[in-house]
């Protein structure tokens, strides 16, 4: 693939990749970095790109992997930070509570999705928000379709559960 074709065919994918990374990571600069990284990789392999049937799936797959790496690294950092910054955490928590008060509906489920196990989080993101079908998701995740279906099923049920639970708690509070 030459530079021009790359610009026309591959470059536009950036919006999807960015949206995906942003929703997974919830951090604008990090998401941007990841997208840049993915494109450098794609650029470096542009000669081989023509042999790929679904470049979008490839790009999404790369993005997914980098996001997972970031999330895992975050977890280890967070554990270390907890050790030293106990005071700060309390303040942060107060702030986020305020935001929740303002955007109850969205935040509730937003947090719920983040609480999902990594794989469920990513797959539900791909299916219900990005809108990919099972074929495409299997290419991105490198999983078979049935496993994906089971995963989605669990994720959706879990979310429903959480919504029900929080609604119940809320009505209990209001009484």
């Amino acid at each position, binding site marked *: 693939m030459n530079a021009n074709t790359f*610009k026309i065919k591959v*470059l*536009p994918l*950036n*919006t*999807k990749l*960015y*949206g*995906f990374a*942003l*929703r997974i990571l919830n951090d604008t600069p990090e998401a*941007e970095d990841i*997208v*840049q990284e993915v*494109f*450098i990789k794609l*650029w470096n392999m542009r000669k081989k790109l023509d042999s790929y049937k679904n470049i979008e799936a490839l790009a999404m797959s790369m993005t997914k992997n980098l996001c997972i790496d970031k999330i895992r690294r975050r977890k280890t950092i967070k554990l270390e930070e907890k050790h030293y910054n106990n005071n700060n955490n309390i303040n942060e928590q107060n702030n986020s509570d305020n935001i929740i008060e303002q955007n109850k*509906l*969205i935040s509730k*489920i937003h947090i719920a999705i983040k609480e999902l196990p990594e794989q469920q989080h990513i797959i539900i993101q791909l299916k*219900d*928000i*990005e*809108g990919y*079908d099972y074929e495409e998701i299997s290419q991105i995740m490198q999983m078979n379709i049935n496993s*994906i*279906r*089971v*995963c*989605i*099923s669990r994720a*959706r*049920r879990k*979310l*429903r559960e959480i*919504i*029900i639970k929080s*609604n119940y708690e809320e009505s209990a509070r209001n009484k």
Partner: protein
Amino acid sequence: MKNLQEINKLLAKFYNGESSKDDELYLIKFFRKENIPDELNADKELFLYLKDQKYRSLQNNDLSEKIWQNIQNTEKKKKHRIRRDLSVLSGIAASILIFIISFHMLHNNPNIFNNEYKFEDTYTNPELAYLETKQALLYISEKFNKGTEQLKPIAKFNDGIEELEPINQYNKGSKYFK
């Protein structure tokens, strides 16, 4: 509501991950209406949320410009790196070449860089050269010996000292008796 049965069917499919895109569209249309039964509240929230997110996903920022810039910068950096590596390499190669050439030249023509005074052999006949050499060397040898003969007394003196060597040994031994 006759639809309720249908809705529940579709919901069951959804939560099994078996619903089609059309099924999901139908459900969304349903949840948009008013008067949703209470027990389906949670599902409504879920569906609306997902729909909302999907909508937002279509409004992502376009980073095309930035990305293309980044790619070009990376390519430039690569070129710089290659150019720099090449210049270092060619510098080394040039040095090695100089080394090899000069070594070679010196090896073959040891005098090429010096002001070589081309002296020609005076004789072409080895025998003659030999004799002439011998003559010169003999002359030198005689003069040399004349000079060194004068040093014979010193040699005698040295001999004398050697005779006294045993005394030295005695001295060494007596140390231990102090």
